[in-house]
């Protein structure tokens, strides 16, 4: 009985402490609520996959579009002349391109000619595979309905990830996720620990400016984040044969900026939070939606418009695009620089907020 009383006493104290840490308590309720809302409204794994159709005639393209439009979860986003569907997939405008060869279409499957080509962006294997299977089924069904079950075949070309390896789909993004979580945590703790340990008071009295403290505290972690990101890439390369087809140096150059963005954010969170617990909760409240809306856990293209708008605010979204582009699609500096701009803007904003919130006094 006395043991139960002691446990109850400890539990009561812990509950009281938690109740009096208002920010932590708010975030403990807010984070699960946010997850539920995001999972329920933004995450739709069965959302429509974009398809581009290229055919020799407008009529053929319309016929194919009509057939595919009846399929669940396929959205025809473009119709054009031969070659345009593949080009659109390579540009990232559609996940699947259907190239109908000369004199061949769903409308006239008995005609002679080469096979129907389905060009798939397989960098997201799970998304592309199911949709491709549905198109194949629709094609064979169309042939069967026209009485030619043994008609000409179709050829599926999987770009970037020919074996549809699921691990290749998420490993590039995992580099960003690993660095993001580590840097937010380190940025948060670097300040929260100082404040709770008392060294912050001593630091305030030294002739060091706010910007100098911010930069000085975060620079070592930028180096750590860069090394960490490179290490994850190397592990992917050695253990999972993850290719780096594009400019690896360009992607490596993006890592310090990406790390700095999350360090500055972590620092800004800690500058507002009073305790380490509250600061860590704030960090979690940021990185969970970032993972959900960046295209890492679920294909970005399947998110609704509002979720994509929010997703584009997260540095992880842009890093994910750059990493996938460089590793699987063979891209280089142009893509990396394009994705670096929003990350740089985020970094500047987070650093400004961190410097602003970083109090010069103990009031």
């Amino acid at each position, binding site marked *: 009985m006395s043991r139960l009383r002691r446990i109850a006493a400890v539990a009561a104290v812990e509950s009281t402490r938690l109740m009096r840490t208002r920010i932590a308590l708010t975030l403990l309720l807010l984070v699960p609520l946010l997850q539920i809302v995001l999972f329920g409204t933004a995450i739709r794994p069965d959302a429509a996959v974009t398809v581009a159709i290229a055919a020799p005639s407008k009529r053929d393209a319309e016929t194919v579009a009509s057939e595919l439009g009846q399929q669940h979860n396929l959205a025809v986003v473009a119709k054009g002349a031969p070659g345009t569907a593949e080009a659109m997939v390579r540009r990232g405008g559609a996940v699947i391109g259907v190239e109908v060869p000369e004199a061949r279409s769903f409308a006239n499957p008995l005609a002679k000619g080469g096979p129907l080509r389905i060009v798939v962006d397989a960098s997201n294997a799970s998304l592309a595979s199911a949709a491709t299977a549905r198109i194949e089924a629709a094609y064979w069904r169309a042939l069967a309905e026209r009485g030619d079950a043994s008609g000409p075949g179709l050829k599926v070309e999987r770009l970037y990830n020919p074996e549809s390896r699921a691990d290749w789909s998420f490993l590039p993004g995992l580099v960003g996720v690993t660095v993001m979580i580590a840097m937010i945590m380190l940025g948060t703790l670097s300040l929260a620990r100082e404040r709770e*340990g*008392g*060294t912050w*008071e*001593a630091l*305030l*009295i*030294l*002739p*060091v400016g706010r910007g100098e403290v911010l930069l000085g505290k975060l620079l070592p972690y930028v180096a750590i984040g860069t090394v960490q990101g490179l290490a994850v890439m190397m592990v992917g390369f050695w253990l999972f044969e993850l290719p780096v087809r594009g400019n690896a140096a360009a992607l490596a150059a993006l890592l310090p900026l990406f790390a700095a963005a999350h360090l500055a954010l972590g620092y800004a969170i800690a500058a507002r939070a009073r305790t380490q617990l509250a600061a860590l909760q704030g960090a979690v409240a940021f990185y969970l939606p970032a993972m959900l809306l960046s295209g890492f856990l679920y294909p970005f293209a399947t998110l609704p418009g509002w979720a994509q708008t929010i997703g584009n605010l997260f540095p992880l979204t842009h890093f994910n695009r750059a990493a996938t582009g460089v590793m699987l699609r063979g891209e280089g500096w142009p893509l990396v620089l394009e994705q670096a701009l929003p990350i740089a803007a985020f970094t500047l904003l987070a650093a400004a907020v961190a410097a602003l919130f970083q109090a010069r*006094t*103990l*009031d």
Partner: protein
Amino acid sequence: MAELLVDISGLSKAFGSRTVVRDVSMRLGAGDLLGLVGANGGGKTTTLRMLAGLVKPDTGSGTVLGAAIRSGRSGRIDQRQIGYMSQKLALYAELTVLENLRFHARVHGLRSDVIGDALARYGLEAVASQRFGVLSGGWARRVQFATSVLHAPLLLLLDEPTAGLDVVTRLALWDWMAQFASAGSAVVVSTHDLAEAERLPQIMLYRDGRASAQTTPGQLIGAAGSPTLEAAVLGQAQP
């Protein structure tokens, strides 16, 4: 008092509904050593923090090292001229004594030979390579004092520097504080030890956020007709 390094009047500070410092005034010149004496929670720490620019006063005004101190927007105190030792052991526990001293020397833009001088002067050579976090309270206080005065500040603010220390370390710290004042710095030190305060040239007695005028322990003892400062203070505290 040739040059006033601290000249404040009527400083008050409240946190929420609780007023922790009421109407404190102080004038200090080079060579002054002033003790803020009183029980814990009396407002000594907040006074020191206001002098250091770490806390803004709600009312009152004045100057510290020439910078304006007042409610709202205060002037920027030249932190290169302030030495501050907080009540907490506020140095980096993961760094060695030498590394902590080196850090302070670098941010103050000092030559590296001041570190060796400080190690010798405060008897820290034996612990120079030890991590600050593993030091005993006495050694930690010595190191903290050494970092606070490394840049030979004009104004030295020390918050309970001798609390909980052995007599040897306590005496050494008082001796070093006196040396600093003799060398031309103004030193403000808080303590709740009345026996130690009795040896100070000037004191201000704190009670419930209110501070007495600057006076000498002898004047306080004489006015109370008591044999010691402790007896005088206890006599005043009687309802």
